């Protein structure tokens, strides 16, 4: 209905200047996307007695469990996005170069599943493989390497790093593949004709062109890793203090804080970090687009 009305309005409204056909979209995103963000920001600035205050942000900024959670979350997303972007870039190169046709299409969908369906199933799969009774754990033990001899458990920080890498790598493949596919054959030919070796081509041509896309993809992975909730929640049940997990326990009422709106402040803190990371992504994308268009 909405659609039909919007379009008949456009017709009666003359030639192509109206914003009316876009109104359903603006109303929808305004109400379900912008308004929640504004509302949580406003409430984070209110204290227990509904007065304006910055007190909710204090626990995040001074050392303590909430500050620590931000440190752990940042560390986790930094490590996994480094692993993910390097391995993923390598895979993307091999896939673009050697996987064609149907096989390439299947690899695309497999990457999409691995990158997106993360969350809950992923956590349980890793418990099956690397848990104390896991298949891989036993296999490695038979080969003489007891991974549980030290401090490692799949429910620890290292465990979460492993699981996160599992979706960061294919995400990198998806994001970075277009950049590699965009390397033109002519550039390689030109540099070869000018007498450059393969190494020189990579050092002087391909890598400088790919760097902005690589940095952009890195920021995207960073933001994704920082915001991820489901996997860590299902895997650790709170043993690794990550910001999203702590917000979750505050919401569920499992942890009582004397500050009613602390969870809101943490949520806004996450938005700030993610915005900075995505700012990096958008900036790098612009740089990358400049190369492609020139």
């Amino acid at each position, binding site marked *: 209905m909405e*659609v039909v009305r*919007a*379009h008949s309005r456009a*017709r009666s409204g003359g030639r*192509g200047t109206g914003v009316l*056909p*876009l109104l359903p*979209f603006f109303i*929808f*995103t305004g109400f*379900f*996307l*912008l*308004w*929640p*963000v*504004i*509302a*949580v920001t406003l409430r984070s600035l209110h204290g227990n007695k509904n007065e304006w205050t910055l007190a909710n942000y204090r626990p995040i900024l001074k050392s303590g469990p909430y500050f620590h959670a931000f440190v752990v979350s940042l560390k986790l997303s930094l490590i996994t996005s480094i692993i993910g972007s390097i391995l993923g870039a*390598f*895979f993307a190169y*091999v896939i673009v*170069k*050697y996987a064609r046709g*149907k096989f390439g*299409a*299947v690899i*695309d*969908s497999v990457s*999409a*599943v*691995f990158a*997106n*369906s993360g*969350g809950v*199933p992923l*956590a*349980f*799969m*890793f*418990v*099956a*493989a*690397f848990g104390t009774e*896991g*298949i891989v754990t036993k296999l490695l033990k038979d080969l003489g390497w007891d991974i549980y001899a030290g401090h490692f458990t799949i429910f620890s920080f290292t465990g979460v790093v492993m699981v996160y890498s*599992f979706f960061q*790598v294919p995400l990198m493949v998806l994001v970075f593949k277009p950049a590699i596919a965009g390397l033109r054959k002519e550039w390689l030919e030109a540099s070869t004709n000018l007498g450059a*070796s*393969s190494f020189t081509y990579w050092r002087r041509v391909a890598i400088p062109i790919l760097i902005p896309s690589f940095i952009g993809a890195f920021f*995207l992975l960073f933001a994704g890793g920082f915001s991820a909730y*489901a996997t860590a929640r299902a895997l650790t049940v709170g043993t690794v203090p990550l910001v999203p997990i702590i*917000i*979750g326990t505050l*919401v569920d009422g499992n942890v009582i804080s004397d500050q009613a709106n602390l969870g*809101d402040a943490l*949520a806004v803190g*996450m938005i700030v970090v*993610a915005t900075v990371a*995505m700012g990096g992504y958008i900036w790098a994308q612009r740089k990358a687009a400049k190369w492609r268009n020139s």
Partner: protein
Amino acid sequence: MKRISLKWPLIIFSSFLSIIIFIVPLYGASLYSFRGEGGKGHSLVNYQWLLHQDGFYPSLFTSLKLAVLAGLLNLILMVPTMVYLNLKGQRYKSLVDFLCILPLIIPVVSLAIGAQVAMPKILQNSEYELVFFFVIIALPYTYRALDTSLQTVALKTLVEASRSLGATWTRTIIRVIVPAIRSGITGALFLTFALSIGEYTITSLLHWETFPTWTVVAAQQNILGAIAISVFSFVGAIALLSVIALFSKKSAQKAEVEE
């Protein structure tokens, strides 16, 4: 100058790497899920356990229902928006582009907290509130899918031809544009569907029960059963997406031939 071919070393090394990173956990989990009673032998006991659990069918049904609704709502909202944007609304494009990338920037956890604060009570009391947020979460992907396929068709020509032959706007969209951008529409639909059916974060923070949140609760009773669900949903998703990818490749080739 002779170039050394790195083809096979690269392929072998990357296959080896991907086996370690991806195949081993998946294989380990599947082996585990086929374990028999008391961890001995092989059987389907964990999969059978699953089917007889309280809440398996209701939660699966809820997830399917919400995912289908989200897919449809997404198309109803986004197809006209994207068509208009590519046709006449060029100057709003960067604004829409920005709004559609926002769900990637705003952590879903924060969005969920915001939803609790901002949504009117009547909406918060119904599980259908999730449909709206599933559509929001899928926006970055559906925008890309629809935009890409709209740019490959001569939209203006199609619309002018259809309108000058006397078709209404609604008819033009349904009979001319939708068939032309079929691949983008299927892509958008399936992406929304897939994201919705696996969505955990916002669902659990808003305290609704769908298939993923039910799985986590069920896992506390029987981890083997939870692993069985995980393997099932992973393999199922890969199979489904591969079939779609192969099918859409084929129809794209066919379309090229027809032209």
